[in-house]
Protein backbone atom coordinates (compact mmCIF):
# COMPACT_ATOMS: atom_id res chain seq x y z
CA UNK A 1 0.00 0.00 0.00
CA UNK A 2 1.38 3.37 -1.00
CA UNK A 3 0.50 6.19 1.33
CA UNK A 4 -2.02 8.93 0.57
CA UNK A 5 -0.48 12.43 0.29
CA UNK A 6 -1.36 14.84 3.07
CA UNK A 7 -3.88 17.55 2.23
CA UNK A 8 -4.08 18.86 5.79
CA UNK A 9 -3.26 22.43 4.67
CA UNK A 10 -6.10 22.62 2.12
CA UNK A 11 -9.28 24.58 2.84
CA UNK A 12 -12.14 22.40 1.66
CA UNK A 13 -14.62 25.28 1.71
CA UNK A 14 -13.43 26.19 -1.78
CA UNK A 15 -11.27 23.29 -2.98
CA UNK A 16 -12.62 19.80 -3.70
CA UNK A 17 -11.95 17.46 -0.81
CA UNK A 18 -10.49 14.08 -1.82
CA UNK A 19 -13.37 11.62 -2.07
CA UNK A 20 -14.22 8.21 -3.48
CA UNK A 21 -13.41 9.34 -7.04
CA UNK A 22 -9.99 10.67 -6.01
CA UNK A 23 -9.16 7.48 -4.13
CA UNK A 24 -10.24 5.39 -7.09
CA UNK A 25 -7.53 7.19 -9.06
CA UNK A 26 -4.90 6.37 -6.44
CA UNK A 27 -5.91 2.70 -6.43
CA UNK A 28 -6.15 2.45 -10.19
CA UNK A 29 -2.85 4.03 -11.19
CA UNK A 30 -1.02 1.92 -8.61
CA UNK A 31 -2.83 -1.35 -9.45
CA UNK A 32 -0.74 -4.22 -10.80
CA UNK A 33 -2.19 -4.11 -14.34
CA UNK A 34 -1.70 -0.36 -14.67
CA UNK A 35 1.83 -0.25 -13.28
CA UNK A 36 2.67 -3.09 -15.69
CA UNK A 37 1.16 -1.13 -18.57
CA UNK A 38 2.84 2.15 -17.61
CA UNK A 39 6.17 0.51 -16.78
CA UNK A 40 6.14 -1.12 -20.19
CA UNK A 41 5.43 2.13 -21.92
CA UNK A 42 7.59 4.51 -19.92
CA UNK A 43 9.83 2.52 -17.58
CA UNK A 44 13.61 2.31 -17.70
CA UNK A 45 13.39 -0.82 -19.79
CA UNK A 46 10.99 0.55 -22.34
CA UNK A 47 12.23 1.85 -25.67
CA UNK A 48 11.39 5.37 -24.65
CA UNK A 49 13.47 5.06 -21.52
CA UNK A 50 15.66 8.05 -22.18
CA UNK A 51 12.90 10.60 -22.19
CA UNK A 52 11.09 11.39 -18.92
CA UNK A 53 7.32 11.17 -19.34
CA UNK A 54 5.20 14.31 -18.85
CA UNK A 55 2.20 13.66 -16.60
CA UNK A 56 -0.52 16.31 -16.76
CA UNK A 57 -3.45 16.34 -14.38
CA UNK A 58 -6.35 18.52 -15.45
CA UNK A 59 -8.48 19.77 -12.55
CA UNK A 60 -5.99 18.99 -9.78
CA UNK A 61 -8.23 20.24 -6.94
CA UNK A 62 -6.35 19.53 -3.69
CA UNK A 63 -3.55 17.92 -5.72
CA UNK A 64 -3.95 14.56 -4.02
CA UNK A 65 -3.77 12.53 -7.24
CA UNK A 66 -0.86 14.38 -8.83
CA UNK A 67 1.06 14.31 -5.55
CA UNK A 68 0.50 10.57 -5.30
CA UNK A 69 1.83 10.02 -8.81
CA UNK A 70 4.80 12.33 -8.25
CA UNK A 71 5.74 10.75 -4.92
CA UNK A 72 5.31 7.17 -6.10
CA UNK A 73 6.73 7.46 -9.59
CA UNK A 74 9.20 4.57 -9.12
CA UNK A 75 6.38 2.20 -8.12
CA UNK A 76 4.04 3.40 -10.87
CA UNK A 77 6.40 4.04 -13.80
CA UNK A 78 9.51 2.16 -12.83
CA UNK A 79 11.51 5.42 -12.86
CA UNK A 80 11.71 8.53 -10.73
CA UNK A 81 12.43 11.18 -13.31
CA UNK A 82 8.79 11.88 -14.12
CA UNK A 83 7.59 15.42 -14.89
CA UNK A 84 4.34 16.50 -13.25
CA UNK A 85 2.21 19.45 -14.31
CA UNK A 86 -1.30 20.39 -13.13
CA UNK A 87 -4.10 22.72 -14.21
CA UNK A 88 -7.30 23.94 -12.57
CA UNK A 89 -9.88 26.63 -13.21
CA UNK A 90 -9.87 27.41 -9.50
CA UNK A 91 -6.84 29.51 -8.54
CA UNK A 92 -7.17 28.54 -4.87
CA UNK A 93 -6.94 24.90 -5.91
CA UNK A 94 -3.83 25.69 -7.97
CA UNK A 95 -1.99 27.05 -4.93
CA UNK A 96 -3.20 24.32 -2.61
CA UNK A 97 -2.24 21.58 -5.06
CA UNK A 98 1.24 22.97 -5.63
CA UNK A 99 1.84 22.74 -1.91
CA UNK A 100 0.42 19.21 -1.71
CA UNK A 101 2.76 17.98 -4.43
CA UNK A 102 5.78 19.76 -3.01
CA UNK A 103 5.20 18.31 0.44
CA UNK A 104 4.68 14.80 -0.90
CA UNK A 105 7.88 14.72 -2.94
CA UNK A 106 9.94 16.15 -0.10
CA UNK A 107 9.35 13.22 2.21
CA UNK A 108 12.79 11.98 3.21
CA UNK A 109 12.56 8.41 1.95
CA UNK A 110 11.42 9.47 -1.52
CA UNK A 111 13.42 9.59 -4.67
CA UNK A 112 12.03 12.87 -5.86
CA UNK A 113 10.43 13.10 -9.24
CA UNK A 114 10.15 16.50 -10.84
CA UNK A 115 7.24 18.76 -10.12
CA UNK A 116 6.86 21.57 -12.61
CA UNK A 117 3.90 23.77 -11.63
CA UNK A 118 0.17 24.09 -11.41
CA UNK A 119 -1.29 26.62 -13.82
CA UNK A 120 -4.66 28.31 -13.66
CA UNK A 121 -6.33 27.44 -16.92
CA UNK A 122 -9.15 25.77 -18.79
CA UNK A 123 -8.53 22.03 -19.33
CA UNK A 124 -5.14 21.55 -21.03
CA UNK A 125 -5.52 24.48 -23.41
CA UNK A 126 -2.19 26.12 -22.50
CA UNK A 127 -0.12 22.97 -22.96
CA UNK A 128 1.78 22.32 -26.16
CA UNK A 129 -0.02 19.94 -28.51
CA UNK A 130 1.16 16.32 -28.63
CA UNK A 131 3.41 16.71 -25.60
CA UNK A 132 1.38 14.93 -22.91
CA UNK A 133 2.41 11.37 -22.13
CA UNK A 134 -0.09 10.70 -19.35
CA UNK A 135 -3.23 12.79 -18.95
CA UNK A 136 -5.33 12.41 -15.81
CA UNK A 137 -8.80 13.92 -15.41
CA UNK A 138 -11.30 13.53 -12.60
CA UNK A 139 -13.86 15.92 -14.09
CA UNK A 140 -16.96 17.60 -12.75
CA UNK A 141 -19.20 14.66 -13.70
CA UNK A 142 -22.48 15.18 -11.83
CA UNK A 143 -25.52 15.88 -14.03
CA UNK A 144 -26.28 19.35 -12.67
CA UNK A 145 -26.55 22.78 -14.22
CA UNK A 146 -23.16 24.29 -15.06
CA UNK A 147 -22.08 27.22 -12.88
CA UNK A 148 -22.47 30.72 -14.29
CA UNK A 149 -18.98 31.35 -15.65
CA UNK A 150 -19.59 35.03 -16.28
CA UNK A 151 -18.33 35.92 -12.80
CA UNK A 152 -15.36 33.57 -12.87
CA UNK A 153 -12.72 36.30 -12.87
CA UNK A 154 -14.25 37.92 -9.73
CA UNK A 155 -14.79 34.70 -7.88
CA UNK A 156 -11.36 33.36 -8.76
CA UNK A 157 -9.46 35.89 -6.61
CA UNK A 158 -9.85 37.30 -3.13
CA UNK A 159 -12.31 40.19 -3.03
CA UNK A 160 -10.53 43.58 -3.04
CA UNK A 161 -9.23 44.61 0.40
CA UNK A 162 -10.24 41.31 1.87
CA UNK A 163 -8.29 38.37 3.17
CA UNK A 164 -11.04 35.81 2.89
CA UNK A 165 -13.49 34.58 0.29
CA UNK A 166 -17.24 35.16 0.45
CA UNK A 167 -19.79 32.40 0.91
CA UNK A 168 -21.11 32.96 -2.63
CA UNK A 169 -17.64 32.67 -3.97
CA UNK A 170 -16.96 29.41 -2.16
CA UNK A 171 -20.23 27.90 -3.43
CA UNK A 172 -19.27 28.84 -6.98
CA UNK A 173 -15.79 27.35 -6.65
CA UNK A 174 -17.18 24.09 -5.29
CA UNK A 175 -19.79 23.96 -8.04
CA UNK A 176 -16.92 24.02 -10.54
CA UNK A 177 -15.67 20.81 -9.04
CA UNK A 178 -18.80 18.71 -9.50
CA UNK A 179 -21.37 20.29 -11.86
CA UNK A 180 -21.05 18.68 -15.28
CA UNK A 181 -24.13 19.96 -17.18
CA UNK A 182 -26.29 17.61 -19.27
CA UNK A 183 -25.55 13.96 -18.43
CA UNK A 184 -22.64 15.34 -16.43
CA UNK A 185 -20.74 15.26 -19.72
CA UNK A 186 -20.34 18.86 -20.87
CA UNK A 187 -16.84 19.44 -19.47
CA UNK A 188 -15.76 15.86 -20.17
CA UNK A 189 -16.86 16.15 -23.80
CA UNK A 190 -14.79 19.29 -24.24
CA UNK A 191 -11.81 17.42 -22.80
CA UNK A 192 -12.37 14.38 -25.01
CA UNK A 193 -12.38 16.60 -28.07
CA UNK A 194 -8.90 17.88 -27.18
CA UNK A 195 -7.36 14.55 -26.19
CA UNK A 196 -6.12 13.39 -29.62
CA UNK A 197 -4.31 16.70 -30.10
CA UNK A 198 -2.88 16.78 -26.57
CA UNK A 199 -1.48 13.27 -26.30
CA UNK A 200 1.91 12.24 -27.58
CA UNK A 201 1.12 10.55 -30.90
CA UNK A 202 2.51 7.12 -30.06
CA UNK A 203 2.95 6.73 -26.34
CA UNK A 204 0.23 9.06 -24.98
CA UNK A 205 -2.39 7.66 -22.62
CA UNK A 206 -5.29 9.29 -20.76
CA UNK A 207 -7.13 8.23 -17.61
CA UNK A 208 -10.64 9.62 -17.27
CA UNK A 209 -13.22 9.11 -14.56
CA UNK A 210 -16.86 8.56 -15.46
CA UNK A 211 -19.96 7.92 -13.37
CA UNK A 212 -22.86 5.68 -14.35
CA UNK A 213 -25.00 8.64 -15.51
CA UNK A 214 -22.28 9.61 -17.98
CA UNK A 215 -23.10 6.41 -19.94
CA UNK A 216 -19.57 5.05 -19.95
CA UNK A 217 -20.20 2.36 -22.56
CA UNK A 218 -21.33 4.94 -25.08
CA UNK A 219 -18.31 7.12 -24.24
CA UNK A 220 -15.93 4.23 -24.78
CA UNK A 221 -17.41 3.24 -28.10
CA UNK A 222 -17.25 6.84 -29.30
CA UNK A 223 -13.55 6.94 -28.49
CA UNK A 224 -12.94 3.73 -30.42
CA UNK A 225 -14.53 5.46 -33.40
CA UNK A 226 -11.95 8.26 -33.34
CA UNK A 227 -9.95 6.31 -35.88
CA UNK A 228 -7.72 3.32 -36.35
CA UNK A 229 -5.85 2.20 -33.26
CA UNK A 230 -7.80 4.15 -30.62
CA UNK A 231 -8.75 2.08 -27.61
CA UNK A 232 -10.74 2.70 -24.43
CA UNK A 233 -11.12 0.22 -21.59
CA UNK A 234 -12.38 0.31 -18.02
CA UNK A 235 -9.39 -0.17 -15.72
CA UNK A 236 -10.84 0.69 -12.30
CA UNK A 237 -14.28 0.61 -10.70
CA UNK A 238 -15.86 1.43 -7.38
CA UNK A 239 -19.26 1.39 -5.73
CA UNK A 240 -20.56 -1.74 -7.44
CA UNK A 241 -24.33 -2.09 -6.94
CA UNK A 242 -26.49 -4.72 -8.63
CA UNK A 243 -24.01 -5.08 -11.47
CA UNK A 244 -23.63 -1.31 -11.91
CA UNK A 245 -20.47 0.57 -11.21
CA UNK A 246 -21.14 3.91 -9.70
CA UNK A 247 -17.73 5.19 -10.74
CA UNK A 248 -15.18 3.94 -13.20
CA UNK A 249 -11.89 5.01 -14.70
CA UNK A 250 -11.27 4.41 -18.34
CA UNK A 251 -7.90 4.28 -20.03
CA UNK A 252 -7.69 5.87 -23.48
CA UNK A 253 -4.71 5.08 -25.67
CA UNK A 254 -3.59 4.30 -29.14
CA UNK A 255 -2.41 0.92 -30.14
CA UNK A 256 0.62 0.92 -32.34
CA UNK A 257 -0.42 0.23 -35.85
CA UNK A 258 1.54 -2.47 -37.58
CA UNK A 259 3.86 -1.35 -40.39
Amino acid at each position, binding site marked *: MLSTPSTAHVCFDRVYEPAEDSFLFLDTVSSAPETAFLGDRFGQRSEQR*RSPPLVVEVGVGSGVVLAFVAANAPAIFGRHDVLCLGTDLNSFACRAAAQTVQTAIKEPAREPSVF*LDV*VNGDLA*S*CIRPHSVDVLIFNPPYVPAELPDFSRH*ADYNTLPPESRSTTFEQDSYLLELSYAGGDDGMVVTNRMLEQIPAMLHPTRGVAYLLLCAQNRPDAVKSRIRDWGPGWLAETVGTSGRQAGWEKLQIIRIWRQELAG
Partner: protein
Amino acid sequence: MKLLTLNFLTCALKPCKASPLSFPLHPRDAELEIVESELNLSFLRNILPRLAWEELRGVVRELGLPDLPEIMPEAEALGKASSGKKTNENAANENTITTTTDEDELSPKPEVQPEAEEPDLEPTQTALDLHRLLLETSLRAGSLVCGNCGHAYKVKEGVANFLLPGHLV
Protein backbone atom coordinates in the same frame (compact mmCIF):
# COMPACT_ATOMS: atom_id res chain seq x y z
CA MET B 1 6.68 29.23 -12.19
CA LYS B 2 9.79 27.35 -13.24
CA LEU B 3 11.54 28.21 -16.49
CA LEU B 4 11.37 24.54 -17.47
CA THR B 5 7.58 24.77 -17.43
CA LEU B 6 7.80 27.23 -20.33
CA ASN B 7 9.14 24.34 -22.42
CA PHE B 8 5.66 22.80 -22.28
CA LEU B 9 3.36 25.83 -22.51
CA THR B 10 1.83 27.71 -25.40
CA CYS B 11 -0.90 30.29 -26.00
CA ALA B 12 -4.31 29.05 -24.84
CA LEU B 13 -6.03 30.46 -27.91
CA LYS B 14 -6.81 27.78 -30.43
CA PRO B 15 -5.95 29.73 -33.59
CA CYS B 16 -2.49 30.51 -32.18
CA LYS B 17 -1.47 26.89 -31.79
CA ALA B 18 -0.85 26.49 -35.52
CA SER B 19 1.59 29.41 -35.48
CA PRO B 20 5.24 28.81 -34.56
CA LEU B 21 5.16 32.29 -32.98
CA SER B 22 2.98 31.04 -30.11
CA PHE B 23 5.97 29.16 -28.66
CA PRO B 24 7.73 29.96 -26.48
CA LEU B 25 5.75 32.49 -24.49
CA HIS B 26 7.83 35.58 -23.73
CA PRO B 27 8.23 36.74 -20.13
CA ARG B 28 7.61 40.45 -19.61
CA ASP B 29 8.14 42.56 -16.44
CA ALA B 30 9.36 39.39 -14.83
CA GLU B 31 10.08 39.24 -11.14
CA LEU B 32 12.30 36.22 -10.58
CA GLU B 33 13.09 34.21 -7.49
CA ILE B 34 15.18 31.15 -6.72
CA VAL B 35 13.30 28.24 -5.18
CA GLU B 36 15.85 25.61 -4.27
CA SER B 37 15.19 21.99 -5.09
CA GLU B 38 17.07 18.74 -5.08
CA LEU B 39 19.06 18.00 -8.21
CA ASN B 40 17.93 14.86 -10.00
CA LEU B 41 20.84 13.95 -12.27
CA SER B 42 19.24 11.18 -14.26
CA PHE B 43 16.32 13.50 -14.93
CA LEU B 44 18.59 16.25 -16.22
CA ARG B 45 20.43 13.82 -18.46
CA ASN B 46 17.25 12.35 -19.84
CA ILE B 47 15.28 15.57 -20.32
CA LEU B 48 17.76 17.06 -22.80
CA PRO B 49 16.16 15.61 -25.94
CA ARG B 50 12.80 17.05 -24.85
CA LEU B 51 14.08 20.59 -24.51
CA ALA B 52 13.43 23.18 -27.19
CA TRP B 53 16.98 24.45 -26.71
CA GLU B 54 16.97 27.41 -29.09
CA GLU B 55 13.68 28.70 -27.68
CA LEU B 56 14.80 28.28 -24.08
CA ARG B 57 18.01 30.14 -24.89
CA GLY B 58 15.85 32.94 -26.22
CA VAL B 59 13.78 33.09 -23.04
CA VAL B 60 16.89 33.09 -20.88
CA ARG B 61 18.31 35.96 -22.91
CA GLU B 62 15.07 37.94 -22.70
CA LEU B 63 15.23 37.58 -18.93
CA GLY B 64 18.77 38.92 -18.91
CA LEU B 65 20.11 35.76 -17.28
CA PRO B 66 23.53 34.27 -18.11
CA ASP B 67 23.36 32.68 -21.56
CA LEU B 68 22.77 28.99 -22.03
CA PRO B 69 25.52 27.31 -24.06
CA GLU B 70 24.96 27.74 -27.79
CA ILE B 71 24.84 24.01 -28.33
CA MET B 72 22.85 21.77 -26.03
CA PRO B 73 25.26 19.80 -23.82
CA GLU B 74 25.51 16.03 -24.22
CA ALA B 75 24.13 13.90 -21.40
CA GLU B 76 27.69 12.78 -20.74
CA ALA B 77 28.72 16.34 -19.91
CA LEU B 78 26.35 16.47 -16.93
CA GLY B 79 27.78 13.69 -14.79
CA LYS B 80 31.27 12.74 -13.75
CA ALA B 81 32.50 9.73 -11.80
CA SER B 82 32.38 10.52 -8.13
CA SER B 83 35.52 11.15 -6.14
CA GLY B 84 36.87 8.68 -3.57
CA LYS B 85 34.41 9.75 -0.86
CA LYS B 86 33.14 6.22 -0.24
CA THR B 87 36.60 4.81 0.40
CA ASN B 88 37.32 7.36 3.09
CA GLU B 89 34.12 6.61 4.89
CA ASN B 90 34.88 2.91 4.78
CA ALA B 91 38.30 3.35 6.26
CA ALA B 92 36.88 5.31 9.14
CA ASN B 93 34.27 2.75 10.01
CA GLU B 94 35.52 -0.76 9.44
CA ASN B 95 32.99 -2.65 11.50
CA THR B 96 30.13 -1.24 9.57
CA ILE B 97 31.58 -2.24 6.24
CA THR B 98 31.97 -5.83 7.28
CA THR B 99 28.31 -6.10 8.22
CA THR B 100 27.17 -4.33 5.11
CA THR B 101 29.23 -6.58 2.88
CA ASP B 102 27.79 -9.70 4.49
CA GLU B 103 24.29 -8.51 4.00
CA ASP B 104 24.99 -7.59 0.43
CA GLU B 105 26.18 -11.06 -0.36
CA LEU B 106 23.25 -12.77 1.29
CA SER B 107 20.33 -10.75 0.10
CA PRO B 108 19.40 -11.31 -3.53
CA LYS B 109 19.82 -8.26 -5.70
CA PRO B 110 16.55 -6.74 -6.83
CA GLU B 111 15.99 -7.57 -10.46
CA VAL B 112 15.46 -4.05 -11.69
CA GLN B 113 17.80 -1.41 -10.42
CA PRO B 114 16.43 1.79 -11.78
CA GLU B 115 19.71 3.68 -11.74
CA ALA B 116 22.01 0.72 -12.33
CA GLU B 117 23.70 2.23 -15.38
CA GLU B 118 24.94 5.38 -13.66
CA PRO B 119 25.93 4.23 -10.23
CA ASP B 120 28.19 6.91 -8.85
CA LEU B 121 27.85 9.97 -10.96
CA GLU B 122 28.21 13.43 -9.54
CA PRO B 123 26.76 16.49 -11.20
CA THR B 124 29.22 18.62 -13.16
CA GLN B 125 29.17 22.43 -13.12
CA THR B 126 27.12 22.32 -16.34
CA ALA B 127 24.52 20.19 -14.56
CA LEU B 128 24.44 22.51 -11.55
CA ASP B 129 23.97 25.53 -13.82
CA LEU B 130 21.23 23.87 -15.82
CA HIS B 131 19.40 22.79 -12.67
CA ARG B 132 19.62 26.29 -11.23
CA LEU B 133 18.31 27.86 -14.41
CA LEU B 134 15.57 25.46 -15.44
CA LEU B 135 14.30 24.14 -12.12
CA GLU B 136 15.18 26.71 -9.47
CA THR B 137 14.78 30.02 -11.28
CA SER B 138 11.09 30.86 -11.06
CA LEU B 139 8.81 33.55 -12.32
CA ARG B 140 7.09 35.04 -9.27
CA ALA B 141 5.20 37.77 -11.03
CA GLY B 142 4.91 39.36 -14.45
CA SER B 143 3.33 38.24 -17.69
CA LEU B 144 3.82 35.72 -20.44
CA VAL B 145 3.21 37.14 -23.86
CA CYS B 146 2.15 35.23 -26.98
CA GLY B 147 4.29 36.14 -29.99
CA ASN B 148 1.38 35.54 -32.31
CA CYS B 149 -1.65 37.31 -30.82
CA GLY B 150 0.14 39.50 -28.28
CA HIS B 151 -2.03 38.37 -25.39
CA ALA B 152 -0.28 38.80 -22.02
CA TYR B 153 -1.04 36.09 -19.48
CA LYS B 154 -0.50 37.32 -15.93
CA VAL B 155 1.64 35.50 -13.40
CA LYS B 156 0.85 36.24 -9.76
CA GLU B 157 2.46 34.63 -6.74
CA GLY B 158 4.07 32.12 -9.06
CA VAL B 159 0.78 30.98 -10.63
CA ALA B 160 0.20 31.74 -14.32
CA ASN B 161 -3.35 32.57 -15.31
CA PHE B 162 -4.29 31.26 -18.76
CA LEU B 163 -7.98 32.06 -18.53
CA LEU B 164 -9.28 34.27 -21.26
CA PRO B 165 -12.31 36.46 -20.85
CA GLY B 166 -15.33 34.66 -22.27
CA HIS B 167 -13.33 31.48 -22.68
CA LEU B 168 -15.63 29.33 -20.60
CA VAL B 169 -19.02 30.45 -21.80
